[in-house]
């Protein structure tokens, strides 16, 4: 059993999610009585392999979730994959995988090109590092869910405005349900990303106070990109709050969610290929902490 778990690789769950995505896409082409079961089976198999992979890393490679950029992205994709499986089982006629699985695969792709080196750790900064990483994780997931709901809202609203009956195998959730989701995600994303940023400042201060390692400068590209993301998410949440009682609030929220997702994607891409002090290896005498990518 242990040998079996140790041989699980990223390819295993990527392949499972990719097959589930292909099954979702096939809804648009042909009907099948067994597709629903196949989709759930592949998604469940992928999630199972994904979970075992994370557990194996935590148990054998001291890489607890959030302890490296690689693990952070994998945990974010794991949360979304779990959400996809739950939604597919509870709403089998909704092609939610067409929207969620590309994000899941994108995050796994980001994990593949990001560093597997653990962030510097020490007991003194462990809690602040975990808080910092968790809040960014929550913000990232909230932005992704908001964008998926926003995109689905726009497609459904477009269909209703064109006065067309629903496409075969492509029945979207109601506008009311999607609007309900996307009205909450801007404020959740704003609060969690702000909390993540503040906890990052505290973490940096702890480093400086205890002289554990070189602190991340304010002009570091990671600080700048995260600050830009936080500013955008807070602004988006404020706009969302201002328009909430207007008849076009849902449409505004949908576009805001999509732009937020674009900003998040740009921020991730910048983080993947930019040079940074953030999460850098410790100075020779220093002991370091966990953090988000």
């Amino acid at each position: 059993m242990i040998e079996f778990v140790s041989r699980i690789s990223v390819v295993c769950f990527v392949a499972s999610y990719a097959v589930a995505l292909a099954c979702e896409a096939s809804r648009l082409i042909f009907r099948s009585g067994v597709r629903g079961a196949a989709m759930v089976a592949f998604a469940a198999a992928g999630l199972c392999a994904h979970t075992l992979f994370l557990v194996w890393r935590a148990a054998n490679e001291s890489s607890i979730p959030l302890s490296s950029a690689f693990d952070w992205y994998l945990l974010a994709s794991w949360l979304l994959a779990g959400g996809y499986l739950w939604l597919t089982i509870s709403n089998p006629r909704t092609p939610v995988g067409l929207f969620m699985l590309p994000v899941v695969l994108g995050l796994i792709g980001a994990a593949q090109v990001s560093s597997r080196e653990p962030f510097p750790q020490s007991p003194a900064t462990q809690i602040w590092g975990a808080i910092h990483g968790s809040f960014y994780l929550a913000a990232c997931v909230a932005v992704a869910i908001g964008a998926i709901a926003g995109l689905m809202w726009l497609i459904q609203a477009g269909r209703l405005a064109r006065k067309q009956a629903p496409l075969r195998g492509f029945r979207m959730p109601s506008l009311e349900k999607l609007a309900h989701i996307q009205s909450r995600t801007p404020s959740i994303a704003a609060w969690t990303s702000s909390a993540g940023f503040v906890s990052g400042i505290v973490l940096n201060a702890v480093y400086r106070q205890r002289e554990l390692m070189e602190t991340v400068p304010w002009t570091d590209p990671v600080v700048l990109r995260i600050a830009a993301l936080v500013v955008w998410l807070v602004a988006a949440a404020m706009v969302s709050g201002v328009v909430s009682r207007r008849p076009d609030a849902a449409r505004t929220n949908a576009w805001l969610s999509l732009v937020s997702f674009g900003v998040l994607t740009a921020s991730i891409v910048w983080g993947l290929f930019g040079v940074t002090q953030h999460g850098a290896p410790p100075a020779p005498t220093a002991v370091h902490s966990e953090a988000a990518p």
Partner: protein
Amino acid sequence: MTLAFVGGTHRTVPLDLRERLAFSAEQATEALQRFRRLFPGREGVLLSTCNRVEFYTAGEKEAQPPPTKQLVSFLAECRGIDVGLLESVLVEECDEAVVRHLFSVASGLDSMVLGEPQIVAQVKQAWAIAQDSQTSGPLIGEMFQAALRTAKRVTSQTTIGRERLSIPSVAVADFARGVFERFDDKRVLIIGAGKMAAETLRYLRGAGARDIVVLNRTIGRAGQLAARLGARPGSFENLEAELTAADLVVSTTGASAPIVPLELFKKSERQRAGRPLVVLDLAVPRDFDPQIAGRPGVWLYSIDDLSAACAANRKSRQSELPAAFAIIEEETQRFMGDLLHRTTVPVIEQLRAGWNETGVAELDRLFRRLPHLDGVAQAEIRQAFERYAAKILHPPLVSLRSASHSGSPHGLLDALKRLFDLKE
């Protein structure tokens, strides 16, 4: 002839005659009991719906189904109708055509509304009445089982019964449900008290709507409809306030000009606090100014919009017809193959028995001439004989089965009977 059928549908029988010919469940039971007395040993099922009355019958050997003329007379006597009236409008079929027809009926392909699902339940009920009346035997039983299986295949493998065709059902299921997740917390406003309003309201009630207000210029009619459908009547003078409170409006008045012009709507819009509004304007001429459709948060559907969606659905159903008929044809051939194969069973049994009898006699003679053979050796020789007989018989039996499924085993059966001197 093994299977026979007489019947009439909305296509062949005028409505007034169809009404006289229709059987209630009790009348169908009585008719089947009478059929059992008149035609003992025959099987029969009476399918009576608002669009069709059909009698299916089956029998084998000496209990062949009664001639279709007798069936027409039987139906006429049961309902007290002149036979002459029925003879000209009822259709008669036998054997394979009966199977094909029943499979099409059960799959909704012969219905007035193509692909309508209620017919499956009606076919099941008709068969259940026949079972209770003891007129359903093995032939009818297998045919109806196969019909229900075919209907299930058509439903699952085509979309013929999926898309909705009536304007109220499309309005509620395809459009209102696209906007609202639930209706039990929504205010529904019905303007006008026509038939379309009542039908739409029934769909909305089915979808969970509870808070329903009916407005009509004639308060009495609004009250009647409201009482009938569990809604409450409102005053037409409060139209603006009711529009403000409503989440979904169904309008079906006979007014000659829009009763909700853009200006009136704008007044109520300001007080709606951004809540979305679905308007199903089923009136001709329209009750809502078409410009209202451009207001944010408003989903306005006129009868033309909904008719277009219905027509698209109908077209989609029509496009599935070839696939559905291919399934019907495949299942009909399979059923007829199985049915014809049943007729070959006695011949096969006789053939096997004859070979077995000859083998046993030859073996007995052999064992008498070779008394030194022990039990083990005798068993081996018996097995060898049996295997030899089975191998020799295998090709002709396969040919017979194949001929049954292709529809004409009679030539082979006759040849086997003559070659091996088999009796009828």
